[in-house]
């Protein structure tokens, strides 16, 4: 009987694992010794970093979307369906409608979802760019904006940790370009006592914010929004009035994780930080936002974790021990406006050191937005 590998999730992590593993064990799949299946809730793969650009009318949804089947190695079988739960006893993934897909090895790559409903009033009173619909709604609000108070608030946890800074710097430059900056009071808030969780990035951002006249409010954890009064209230007691509220919504793990009883209260799966195996289950690997690891929820994290998971699965399917270890590697570009960018790279042992922003790095970021499809294909 073939050994069954099931990848649950069609985002960057799940797709990289599936494609890399398909290439590594293609011979075994051809021989009928291994079967590799990906389960994706959507028939389309979405490159989510374009949402940031969509909010400024610099990208369209179609640019960031491709059929999932077109990205997969032919050795991967694709099931487009919602998973309802993971049955660890039987080693089955149970799909909507009751169909069961058996696994010997399972990769949980279900990702995270923005959960604005967790903040009372936010859905009615705020904007965000973490969904296609939200990004387009924010785009329309920005195009109709004629000046006033813009406040950015940051929920915890959230994916793409540099997005709050990127959005703020891009908005500052966008407002200047439209002649609206003098009529706009721009306030950047952050949940902890500095401007970004990465201390070197926070140190770099502080004088840049001051130079651009961006007000800052640290130790601000959004607790509720009053859409009528147009105020946002922080858990630390600060109330800020706004005319346009932009939120990085708090995020949650997926329902299938919660319904399967394999996650914590937030729906994050307890995961070994080096092996990327689910704690207490040798048959399950966890990739990307799905983990409970204290690292950035970001596409690059999922990508680098996927490298390790695919290598270990290939090893185990070929009689090895699967001993490759994830070192916490994360790499993120940071847009510092509409024309320059920098980047950070770090791991569990080595802190990041942001480089001087440059036009070249901005164009590299834009080029990567086009090259991403090579990443999902497991090539780049």
């Amino acid at each position: 009987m073939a050994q069954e590998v099931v990848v649950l999730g069609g985002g960057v992590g799940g797709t990289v694992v599936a494609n890399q593993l398909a290439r590594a064990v293609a011979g075994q799949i051809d021989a009928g010794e291994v079967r590799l299946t990906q389960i994706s809730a959507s028939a389309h793969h979405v490159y989510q970093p374009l949402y940031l650009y969509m909010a400024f009318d610099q990208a369209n949804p179609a640019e960031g979307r491709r059929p999932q089947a077109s990205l997969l190695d032919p050795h991967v079988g694709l099931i487009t369906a919602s998973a309802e739960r993971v049955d660890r006893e039987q080693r089955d993934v149970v799909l909507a409608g009751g169909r069961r897909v058996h696994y010997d090895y399972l990769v949980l790559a279900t990702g995270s979802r923005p959960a604005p409903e967790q903040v009372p009033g936010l859905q009615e009173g705020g904007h965000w760019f973490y969904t296609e619909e939200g990004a387009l709604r924010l785009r329309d609000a920005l195009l109709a904006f004629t000046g006033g108070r813009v406040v950015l608030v940051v929920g915890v946890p959230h994916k793409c940790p540099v997005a709050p800074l990127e959005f703020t710097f891009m908005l500052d430059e966008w407002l200047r370009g439209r002649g609206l900056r003098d009529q706009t009071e721009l306030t950047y808030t952050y949940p902890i006592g500095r401007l970004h969780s990465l201390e070197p990035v926070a140190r770099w951002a502080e004088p840049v914010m001051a130079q651009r006249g961006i007000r800052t409010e640290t130790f601000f954890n959004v607790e509720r929004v009053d859409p009528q009064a147009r105020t946002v209230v922080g858990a630390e007691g600060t109330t800020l009035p706004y005319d346009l509220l932009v939120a990085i919504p708090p995020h949650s793990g997926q329902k299938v994780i919660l319904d399967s009883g394999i996650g914590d209260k937030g729906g994050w799966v307890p995961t070994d930080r080096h092996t990327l195996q689910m704690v207490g289950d040798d048959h399950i690997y966890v990739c990307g936002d799905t983990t409970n690891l204290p690292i950035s929820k970001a596409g690059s994290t999922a990508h680098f974790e996927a490298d390790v998971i695919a290598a270990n699965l290939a090893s185990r399917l070929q009689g090895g021990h699967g001993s490759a270890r994830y070192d916490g590697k994360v790499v993120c570009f940071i847009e510092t406006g509409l024309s320059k960018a920098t980047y950070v790279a770090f791991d569990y042992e080595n802190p990041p050191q942001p480089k001087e922003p440059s036009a070249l790095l901005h164009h590299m970021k834009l080029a990567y937005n086009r090259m991403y499809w090579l990443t999902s294909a497991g090539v780049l």
Partner: protein
Amino acid sequence: MAQETQEPHVIDARGSFCPGGLMELIKELRLAPVGTLFEVWSTDQGSARDIPAWTQRAGHELVSSTAADGVYKIQVRRMR
């Protein structure tokens, strides 16, 4: 009181430059019942400074704070 002898819920944020210890604490605390005791393990100096400051501002209780071998262990109880 039972909560005085409660085993802390450990948040192992060692090696976490981003999001870091305080952000991990906030992530867990906002979903936990009032009275829950947390112990954050962090190698990040910024978190060691921030956690006590945030705890006081947000109305929670800083129970203890120690450091050994480069690891800060900070206990916080959710109070509201």
